[in-house]
């Protein structure tokens, strides 16, 4: 007890400047063992320490306090304490002990899930993510947990706001996979298929030595979203995808690849039959909703193709070409597409005709100019970043030594080949490199 009292006074004293906090950190590290020995004694101490000013100390106490299994009732009491801490802790102090912070947050997430109200955890986790990040491009271990809570509580918008940031620095590759996978699912939920494709593509083509389950699941969704958004899917992965992925991914996703080939044949009836026969498999992967969206997207793509060849077309003809049941269904589909902004058309109900119009975008408005301008700025920043990275790498000693070895080999080969030329073939000696 006495040592804890000591610690408390030290914490209260040394939570001023950065040097003090560093000193405090060392003390805390040493005292960590003893803290873990008596977790129950800490509950009273917690009130004495202010989470906002003495964040580091509070963190150590809290971490020791919450270690060990908890029941539902205990979780209920703990959650407000943890939430309060996360919301008002000082980011600078936290960063001294990031892994402690991470484990506290993870436990918070577990408690929230235990009492089955993920919504309570969303806002604190968001704050936690922001505090742990060093820059907005940094991916922490907490990102995937945060996204998981968003998914479970269906608060997609908050998830999206975090997803808008570009990610470049990664702590752990596994975090990236989970982050992109959950992020992809959130985007699918909000029907932002382009962003979903981007995220899922990152998972599938990330460098990995061996296939992992996250990549497999991501690939399945990738196939489906690609069909919905583009209407086509190419089974060949780009060259930069890891060889493990290129060899093995397809084997795990057979039903989906066959789905894609049936889709590309364009026959809706056959496609529907195929979907029905494999319903269970898709259901087991929880992709059935997505598959249904693929079916409806087939109609959309067929109608879009019609806009390229026809100026006006009767609803009956649309129904026949796209293999819908009746002109009424065709009308509904076209109406839906016009409302979603996917095609530009007018329906003449008197004649039962649809008139397809050109895209009215003239690229002359102020908003368009602003949009183009901001895109240019964005891309310039990106290329600056790329250049900076290239420069950095060219100073790297490992790279330089490798380049030197290559030059050496090249030089030796030229010398020897000159030897061949001057002394003739008969006098050539072996090349030794």
């Amino acid at each position, binding site marked *: 007890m006495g040592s804890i009292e000591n610690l408390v006074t030290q914490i209260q004293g040394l939570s001023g400047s950065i040097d003090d906090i560093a000193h405090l950190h060392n003390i805390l590290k040493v005292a960590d063992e003893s803290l873990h020995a008596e977790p129950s004694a800490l509950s009273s101490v917690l009130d004495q320490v202010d989470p906002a000013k003495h964040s580091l100390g509070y963190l150590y106490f809290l971490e020791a306090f919450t270690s060990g299994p908890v029941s539902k009732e205990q979780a209920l009491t703990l959650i407000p304490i943890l939430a309060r801490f996360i919301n008002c802790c000082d980011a600078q102090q936290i960063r001294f002990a990031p892994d402690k912070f991470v484990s506290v947050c993870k436990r918070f997430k577990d408690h929230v899930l235990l009492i089955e109200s993920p919504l309570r955890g969303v806002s604190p986790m968001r704050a936690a993510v922001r505090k742990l990040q060093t820059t907005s491009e940094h991916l922490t271990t907490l990102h995937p947990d945060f996204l998981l809570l968003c998914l479970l509580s269906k608060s997609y918008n908050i998830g999206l706001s975090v997803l808008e940031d*570009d990610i470049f*620095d*990664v702590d752990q590759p596994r975090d990236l996979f989970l982050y992109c996978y959950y992020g992809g699912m959130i985007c699918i939920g909000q029907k932002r298929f382009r962003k979903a494709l981007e995220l899922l593509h*990152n998972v599938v083509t990330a*460098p990995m030595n061996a296939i992992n389950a996250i990549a497999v699941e991501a690939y399945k969704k990738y196939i489906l979203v690609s069909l919905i958004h583009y209407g086509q899917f190419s089974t060949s992965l780009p060259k930069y995808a890891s060889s493990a992925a290129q060899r093995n991914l397809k084997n795990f996703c057979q039903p989906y690849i066959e789905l894609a080939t049936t889709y590309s044949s364009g026959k809706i009836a056959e496609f529907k039959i195929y979907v029905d026969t494999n319903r269970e498999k898709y259901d087991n992967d929880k992709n059935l909703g997505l598959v249904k969206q693929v079916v409806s997207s087939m109609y959309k793509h067929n109608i879009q193709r019609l806009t390229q*060849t*026809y100026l006006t077309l009767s609803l009956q003809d649309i129904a026949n070409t796209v293999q819908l049941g009746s002109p009424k269904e065709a009308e509904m589909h076209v109406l839906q597409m016009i409302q979603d902004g996917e095609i530009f058309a007018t329906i003449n109900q008197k004649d039962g005709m649809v008139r397809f119009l050109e*895209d009215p975008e003239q690229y002359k408005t102020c908003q368009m100019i602003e949009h183009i301008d901001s895109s240019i700025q964005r891309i310039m920043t*990106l290329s600056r970043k*790329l250049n900076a990275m290239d420069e950095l790498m060219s100073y790297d000693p490992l790279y330089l030594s490798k380049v030197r070895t290559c030059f050496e080999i090249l030089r030796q080969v030229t010398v020897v080949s000159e030897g061949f030329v001057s002394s003739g073939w008969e006098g050539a000696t072996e090349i030794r490199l």
Partner: protein
Amino acid sequence: MEPEDEIYENGGGEQPPPRSKPIISGEQLDVETYASLYRDRTKVARLLFIADRCDNGAMPLEALRMEALRMAYDEIKKGENTQLFREVVNKIGGMLGDKYEMDAAWCETVDRRAEQKKEKLENELNSYRTNLIKESIRMGYNDFGDFHYAHGALGDAFKSYVRTRDYCTTSKHIISMCMNAILVSIEMGQFTHVTSYVSKAEQSPDALDPITVAKLRCAAGLAHLETKKYKLAARKFLETGPELGSHYNEVIAAQDVATYGGLCALASFDRTELKNKVIDNLNFRNFLELVPEVRELINDFYSSHYASCLEYLGNLKPNLLLDIHLHDHVETLYDQIRHKALIQYTHPFVSVDLRMMANAFKTSVAGLEKELEALITDNQIQARIDSHNKILYARHADQRNATFQRVLQTGSEFDRDVRSMLLRANLIKYDHNLRASRKL
């Protein structure tokens, strides 16, 4: 002269005057006259092909078939190929009477003679080889090649001819070797060899006489035709000089040059090339005289009388399907010609009434709409169909908008790709650092 503001139908016109009966025409093939164009092996091959094609039991075709088989029998009997003889007799199956039965005695005599000749040739060749007289060895192999060819062993014939290459001294020898090799390769259907030997013969240092040049062009054209390179085939056939006459009857007749050349040109040339190389080509005109229907149909196409052009094509089709080299290309060539006609029709107009167009092409509006839809989707015609009023409107893409759209799209793709690239680079760096730290 039609008054200016009346839209007038494209594709009408008076009927052409009737002409004398040509050989490749719209009417039923006269097997005898057709076969008289050729000689040797190709005659037999073509007759057998016709017989196979006519093998579906319809009455007029049955008569054709029997005629073809009869002539084949006669022709084979003049030669020494017992294998082919047996085949023909099987096909005839005794339906042509006693005179066309299996003549076993003839077969035996021919075979025995062949054996003796073979022995004799072998002995001669061996003696020449020991004497190392180049010219005799070459003649020996040549004779061997001829022998095998006459007896239908095409692979052996080819090998023998090719062996003479080492013993050729003058360019004349080389050319004769090439011509023999080409002949056998065409019979075997190995057109890659044909192309290589044609180029070999053309590279000979001496000037070739015009007949050989014409023969080589025909052979090259045939090779391109078989490999579906219709444009090159057309060019080769069109360059064939009229000296060819009937000198290459063992492979191809002058009528064939005209037909193949004309159809391939029509399917693959654009208007300027068609005019320069076909219609204004004096040399080729001689060939076209032999097949006036092809000449008429090319002229009709050029002057936009599509209905009559397509009618001629339709008439020619059954006979062309009986041609040994052209039969599997007929469909493709016809489709290409039809598509070209459709595209050419719509090209000069801003709007086209589909009903008139259907009339000009003698098809229904619905069918025409389907064909046009396929061509538009393929981007061969830049237009859009007003299905309600049945009008085709030409549509010219707005360059400015298209450029803006492309720019924005490229920008966002670049953005996305660079970002994922940087991410991947960071991942690899992390992995590398991890491994490095583990090693330490």
